[in-house]
């Protein structure tokens, strides 16, 4: 390590010397504001110390001071590459807390939202991850399909990024009729597009050299460090919340959970590629079996009434007013609900003391946990592999810092 006083004393020219550098917080391959303090011995990484918190917005504190409804938009800003799946995770936790069941159509639409979010998140990971490793072309291909998905998301929610679409006990609105034909078109072309990405990478010699045996983590270490999602499955551990603790009707759909064997960056790549195909399978089943009926639960004290009724009926107007201005009261108790988000297990732990806001809300963020594994994966490797490690783990800082 360089210390200022060393410059004055005569250095031993043969002594091993390391250099400490900052990678980030603003660096093209840190995917947001992640700072890694890296100790280098030439090109070899001796030590990595991750520093997080640059995007901290105090969401858990905010949650204690707003109503349950008012917190939904904040969840958009967690993993901002899959806001729909954060929205769903949060409302599921609140529904569990207040003991509310939603109608079958709502459950199916939520699955649809989560799987669209997964594909779009994986596409961004693929495009930017490949870009980090010098394969620029992939980025343009994946962004073409991401655009299609964002158009679908805009159709469903009315917006592209900050979706805030699910509501406690239902959805902001039903999906529009034109969505299903558009989604079908996408599902028809997309598997071919995944093949196309694979022709660019899967057997590409440079890609293999950059990812095979890079950032390896054993199943044992991955479990010890609490990894979940594709990062855990790439090490050969078959844990998927959709299978282990099915929610929102996932048990009705048949799909496979791809797993890797070596836990290197290449396996993490293969696992996510297959997950996109499996998401298409789920979406096809959702489209084929989408139930009719209402999307909102029948609970006027919690669920916002239909807008048309609000302007014509006194009772609905009062309910709307109370829910919007004061919120609803949750019973005393505590719940945890986790979902299989694109990055891993995203969970909300809510402790309620019987008021209109949580007494404490804790977000179990998969990306926060993931970053803890960076030193283990990168130390002893080359500095260029560090970039591959971070890219293959797919962290999102909005979710890390909260």
């Amino acid at each position, binding site marked *: 390590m360089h210390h200022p006083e060393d410059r004055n004393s005569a250095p031993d020219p043969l002594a091993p010397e390391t250099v400490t550098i900052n990678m980030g917080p603003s660096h093209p391959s840190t995917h947001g504001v992640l700072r890694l303090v890296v100790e280098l011995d030439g090109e070899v990484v001796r030590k990595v110390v991750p520093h*997080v*918190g640059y995007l*901290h917005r*105090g969401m*858990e*504190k905010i949650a204690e*001071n707003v109503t349950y409804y008012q917190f939904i938009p904040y969840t958009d800003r967690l993993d901002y590459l899959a806001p729909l799946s954060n929205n769903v995770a949060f409302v599921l936790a609140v529904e*569990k*807390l207040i*003991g509310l069941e939603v109608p079958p159509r709502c459950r199916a639409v939520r699955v649809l939202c989560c799987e669209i979010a997964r594909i779009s998140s994986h596409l961004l990971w693929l495009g930017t991850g490949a870009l980090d490793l010098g394969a620029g072309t992939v980025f343009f291909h994946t962004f073409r399909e991401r655009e299609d998905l964002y158009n679908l998301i805009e159709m469903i929610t009315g917006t592209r990024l900050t979706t805030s679409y699910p509501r406690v006990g239902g959805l902001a609105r039903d999906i529009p009729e034109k969505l299903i034909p558009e989604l079908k078109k996408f599902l028809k072309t997309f598997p071919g597009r995944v093949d196309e990405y694979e022709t660019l990478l899967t057997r590409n010699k440079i890609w293999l050299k950059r990812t095979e045996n890079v950032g390896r983590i054993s199943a044992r*270490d991955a*479990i*010890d*460090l*609490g990894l*979940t999602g594709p990062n855990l499955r790439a090490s050969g*551990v078959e*844990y998927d919340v959709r299978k*282990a*603790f099915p929610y929102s009707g996932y048990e009705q759909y048949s799909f496979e959970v791809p797993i890797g064997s070596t836990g290197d960056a290449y396996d993490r790549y293969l696992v996510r590629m297959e997950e996109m195909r499996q998401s298409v399978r789920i979406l096809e089943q959702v489209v084929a079996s989408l139930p009719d009926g209402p999307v909102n639960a029948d609970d006027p004290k919690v669920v916002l009434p239909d807008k048309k009724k609000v302007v014509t009926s006194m009772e609905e107007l009062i309910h709307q007013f109370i829910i919007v201005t004061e919120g609803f009261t949750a019973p005393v*108790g*505590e*719940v*945890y609900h*986790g979902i299989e988000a694109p990055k891993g*297990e995203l*969970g909300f*732990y809510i*402790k309620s003391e019987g008021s209109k806001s949580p*007494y*404490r809300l*804790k977000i*179990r963020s998969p990306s*926060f*946990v993931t*970053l*803890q594994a960076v030193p283990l994966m990168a130390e002893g490797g080359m500095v260029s592999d560090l970039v591959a490690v971070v890219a293959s783990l797919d962290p999102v800082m909005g979710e890390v*810092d*909260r």
Partner: protein
Amino acid sequence: MGSEPREVEKVREKFGDALRDVIYFRGEETLVVDPARIVEICRFLKEDPEMDFNLLLDITGIHFLEREYSYEVVYLLLSLPRKRRLRLRARLGEEGEIDSVVPVWGTANWHEREEYDLVGIKFRGHPDLRRIIMPEDFVGHPLRKDFPLDQ
């Protein structure tokens, strides 16, 4: 209580009074345990082949004002082979100190740092207990209930 979940039975059998209470809510179990024995209990739940809680999902710290206890530390455990989740809870006095569970699950390192940083709970024996989210020179713990919101 013949229908107690196996986890509750085993912890009660093995640790007796250290299991202070069991809370059932919405199909989830929370074991309230003696904070002095937290590491022992965690290690048992992880290593006993019948329990096998090999993954620690999360640690949450909660601050209270005007209660007989000042903090709660909530551990969320997951058994991958058995597909079970379990919650442990320890109540701490004003000193807010509890032994670190990093020796049991490596992932506890950052979770404990976060709860130290934001809530102010001190984890004894933690290998590197420093702030993680807030800047190093930050004063106070924002998730405490007496933290001024207009600051």
